[in-house]
């Protein structure tokens, strides 16, 4: 655990000093300023728009951090052989991968936290003087839940990206497959429900079966998207939250296990 922690620590430190990260966070802050303007263009339930914008910016920033910073950091270690400095120590590839995941994950969590606070501030400012225009059920607790589950979904995408970096030979391929996994994860539930309820595909059990298989492989990211719930303060079910969290965390562990298995077999010439 100490060894994993050591790798996580340097991955996190390296990440926090990355100028790209500063750029992403600045962009986030800029978008919050935009949020205040955009919100003013609506005259009803502006609070919903403000919350929507806030949560979407957090998600977007997290995705950019994973797809560019995260995948880059992992593949640079391999391409530039920075990993030699780690693996020439009494550290295993598992320490490296899990440590990297925690380091980068902490980076994503930090970004969500910082942007989350800023998002809340921007919602406050945007709604200043018109608090009655918050949707009726809105609560900051649901807002926080929205951010937490969104971050969990980002961590799943990160774990998948770690897996794809170990499984592919080129960073661009890893990026592409990770983005595709994200998109599939976001939409699979939607597509499956359309196809299984549509009459057009009713006679095609093969297609439905295939989709069912795919849905076991890719994560159901739509389940973690509580933006609408948070924006309107819709009621949330504790059992649903627990189930989703269990699903997400176990998915991450499975991803990292497979990634380690692949990486252990891989040579690093």
């Amino acid at each position, binding site marked *: 655990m100490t060894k994993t922690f050591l790798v996580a620590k340097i991955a996190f430190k390296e990440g926090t000093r990355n100028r790209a990260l500063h750029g992403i966070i600045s962009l986030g802050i800029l978008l919050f300023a935009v949020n205040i303007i955009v919100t003013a263009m609506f005259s009803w339930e502006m609070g919903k*728009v403000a919350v929507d914008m806030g949560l979407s910016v957090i998600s977007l920033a997290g995705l950019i951090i994973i797809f560019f910073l995260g995948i880059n950091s992992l593949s640079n270690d391999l391409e530039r052989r920075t990993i030699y400095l780690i693996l020439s120590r009494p550290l295993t590839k598992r320490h490296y991968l899990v440590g990297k995941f925690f380091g980068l994950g902490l980076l994503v969590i930090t970004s969500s936290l910082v942007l989350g606070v800023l998002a809340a501030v921007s919602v406050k400012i945007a709604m200043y003087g018109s608090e009655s225009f918050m949707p009726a059920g809105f609560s900051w607790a649901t807002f926080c839940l929205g951010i937490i589950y969104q971050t969990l979904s980002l961590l799943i995408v990160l774990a998948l990206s770690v897996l794809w970096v170990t499984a592919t030979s080129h960073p661009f391929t890893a990026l592409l497959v990770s983005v595709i996994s994200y998109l599939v994860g976001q939409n699979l539930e939607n597509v499956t429900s*359309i196809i299984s309820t549509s009459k057009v595909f009713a006679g095609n059990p093969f297609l439905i079966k295939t989709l069912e298989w795919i849905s076991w492989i890719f994560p159901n990211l739509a389940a973690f998207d509580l933006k609408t719930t948070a924006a309107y303060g819709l009621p949330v079910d504790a059992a649903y939250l627990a189930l989703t969290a269990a699903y997400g965390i176990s998915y991450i562990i499975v991803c990292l296990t497979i990634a380690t298995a692949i990486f252990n077999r891989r040579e690093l010439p």
Partner: protein
Amino acid sequence: MKKTTLLLLSCLLGFGALNLAAGSALKDVRQDLKTTYSLRTVPVPGPVLGMAAGEFKGIAADYLLMEVGAFLGSRQEASPEDWERVSTALEQSLMLDPYFQQTYLYVQAFLTWQAKMPEKAVELLKISAQHRPWDWRPPYYIGFDYYFFLKDFDNASRYFLEAGKVEGAPVLLPLLGARFAVKSGRTEVALRLLESMLDDPTLEETERKEISQRIEAMKGVLYLKAALASYKEKEGRLPDSLEELIEKDIIKKTPSNPYASEYLYDKTTGYVYFDEVK
């Protein structure tokens, strides 16, 4: 050295001037374009749009509404094709985020009075009503549209009563629902609706003024109708003009009409109007 400096300087000045000129010309052209600014909608089914938006459905819905708002704000009159596009955009926005209040308010504000598409409005409002069980407005609007535009008193009564069941709904709603069941008081209902809209603290000053004027005009109509009724009771016939009401001492003077110098009166039917539309 000097030659290079000169070359660079002339490039900077020459192309700089060209850029400024082209830029300002472009601005003019764009200005003209703005008058023909049209709403861009992609005719795709909601689920497909939802897929494209992924986890960013919420802001995609907001964006569509902003487009609609910008379009309606930039244009004096809209063609039926334009309204068709507005209705598509509103429908797509509802597919992306069926909860948003602004969407159904746009639907009610534009698709009924201006676009004359009450059926579509009712269809879209039903989506909102289904997703916002805590909100009495969507079923109330549906009821109103059924009553006012579609003359379907049955459904109107049903939705008014439904709206009245929502916590925090005005007491008026169940009353209206009950009255519609016996098909009466059309002007009165419209008046009540308008008055309830005035309670909304979010109204713009101009909107408030508009509604107040309409209320005043409708009150004038109701007042004159009552006077006509008592005239008829007294004289056994309808008067030839509204002035006769004053001559017969039924009223002191005709109420002021915010939309015209005076109220219009149809002596064959006995109807009173505050504007030309009949």
